């Protein structure tokens, strides 16, 4: 990779170059916020299959990838989209119908796993989950783990504190690092080299970004390098981690992007409705995702009025009087 070059590229090219059948992928965002949805839809359009997917509480993006049949293995802490689906519906179906292999962790554990990957170490310790079935029950069978060099041999390992009772701690759980082939995140601002500025909560995006071999960034605004270097304290991800930068306004739609737009409650409610029924859901994929060539086409079909409805109040960062019932 050129550390220093111009990394701006088209979304189709970025996805076809970097996302292969069977690849290990991680996507940023949280439940209904800053999911890299344009990239998710492009993955579905390109018919990529057999993805090994990592997320903590990604919500919408995970559910759509699972629903479209792109995912074979999922390591996750939470499959929910807040009020719109307390359990993501296609995720639930896929697990109940055993269409995907799932491994369950907690949110902190998944975040620590990305952090360990970003730090270049094999594991990190936590006191979370001692005594629970998260430690005792493995979703991926031991044989699968042993045969597959891309997943660690153990889900989690309990370790007696090697420093005795230091910090009043007898035992910890070690969580194994994740180093995805690719991480995709959606951010507010990026420059051509891949410097990123995220407004509002970063969730675990920074750790996910730095843990990956390839980092794909979609952004609301492609700004000049000077615009970011002016305030370096606000740039969470320096360009040395980036492989591809794609300018896609509304790239997180229908999830929210702080200071730019809110989630679209109309879309998310319709989605939850359609997700309950297989036939309806296949129609959704056909008519809402596959039908359009690009994210822009999809947005055009939604129409300017809906996008204005969710456009963020400058001060608050979300749509003030949005009807969310």
């Amino acid at each position, binding site marked *: 990779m050129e550390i220093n070059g111009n990394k701006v590229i088209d979304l189709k090219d970025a996805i076809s170059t970097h996302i292969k059948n069977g690849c290990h992928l991680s996507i940023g965002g949280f*439940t209904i916020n800053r999911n890299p949805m344009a990239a998710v839809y492009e993955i579905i359009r390109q018919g990529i299959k057999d993805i090994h997917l990592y997320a903590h509480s990604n919500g919408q993006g995970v559910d759509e990838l699972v629903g479209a049949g792109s995912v074979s293995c999922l390591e996750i802490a939470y499959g929910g989209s*807040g009020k719109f689906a*307390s359990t993501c519906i296609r995720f639930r179906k896929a697990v*109940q119908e055993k269409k995907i292999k799932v491994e*369950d*962790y907690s949110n902190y554990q998944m975040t620590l796993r990305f952090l360990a990957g970003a730090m270049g170490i094999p594991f990190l310790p936590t006191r979370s989950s*001692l005594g629970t079935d998260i430690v005792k029950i493995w979703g991926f069978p031991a044989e699968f783990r042993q045969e597959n060099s891309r997943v660690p041999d153990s889900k989690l390992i309990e370790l007696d504190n090697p420093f005795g009772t230091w910090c009043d701690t*007898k035992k910890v759980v070690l969580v194994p690092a994740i180093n995805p082939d690719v991480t995709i995140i959606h951010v507010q601002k990026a420059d051509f080299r891949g410097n990123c500025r995220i407004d509002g909560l970063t969730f675990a995006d920074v750790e996910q970004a730095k843990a990956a071999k390839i980092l794909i960034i979609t952004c609301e605004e492609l700004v000049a390098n000077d615009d970011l270097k002016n305030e370096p304290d606000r740039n969470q991800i320096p360009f040395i981690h980036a492989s591809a930068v794609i300018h896609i306004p509304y790239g997180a739609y229908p999830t929210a992007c702080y200071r730019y737009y809110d989630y679209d409650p109309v879309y998310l409610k319709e989605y939850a409705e359609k997700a309950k029924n297989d036939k309806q859901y296949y129609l959704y994929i056909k008519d809402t995702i596959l039908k359009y060539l690009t994210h822009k086409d999809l947005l055009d079909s939604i129409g300017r009025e809906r996008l204005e409805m969710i456009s963020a109040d400058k001060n608050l960062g979300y749509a003030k009087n949005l009807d969310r019932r």
Partner: protein
Amino acid sequence: MDYTLKEMMTIVAAREIRNNDIVFCGTGISMLAAMAAKNINAPQSVIFFETGAIDSKLEDLPLAVGDSRVMYYSSSNGGLLDSFATMQNRVTAKHIVGILGAAQIDIYGNLNSTVIGDYHEPDVRFSGSGGACDVASFVSRSIIFMKQEKRKFKIQLDYLTSPGYLDGPDGREKAGLPEGGPHRVITDMGIMGFDELSKQMFLKGYYPGIIPDKILENMEFEIDTSRAEEVPAPTSNELELLREKCDPHRLIL
């Protein structure tokens, strides 16, 4: 004054929150209870989200802990690493109360929010832990919202997602968990505590119009009801503040 069971539950939970508490909350009724406490009885309490926002202004009710509404006018916007470290850190953890929900609970306050049935052949799959296991592992006390149903108050959980007292008074210590654990269970019929010695659930209160036996009928395991008293109904002041300040658009209520 008329009130719904959801309003009653929210207010009963809010009353458990004190000034100087740092309140971890999830989506839905748990967030509403935290907001109610802040608007009614514990104005100095601090609301805190696993996504990394602390002391958000919450001008509008968030519909998820990842909602942009938690990011506005907070004291600090970090990420998941920050929030969970704050819970695991013993200095801050002792001030934190967590509010959780689950699909199943047992007599020691252990929670299941992962599956009904066998993990590998699930009848019903739920969202999974999210931050719940972390919160239940780390914080000094937690408040748990439950529906009062036999299939939810279980002798044996189908999956133990979030630790309560595990198998008894020294369960947490044996497992290596920090001190702390479940403090209250709030249902649509009453409120439970945990015995200081046995760490088993007991009935602390029942709502107006509910008798303790009704609650026992809706549980698979039996609990001590000898200490139970009637829980005062929400006052008109509580209801007014809840309805007008916290959820004027009836998004959760």
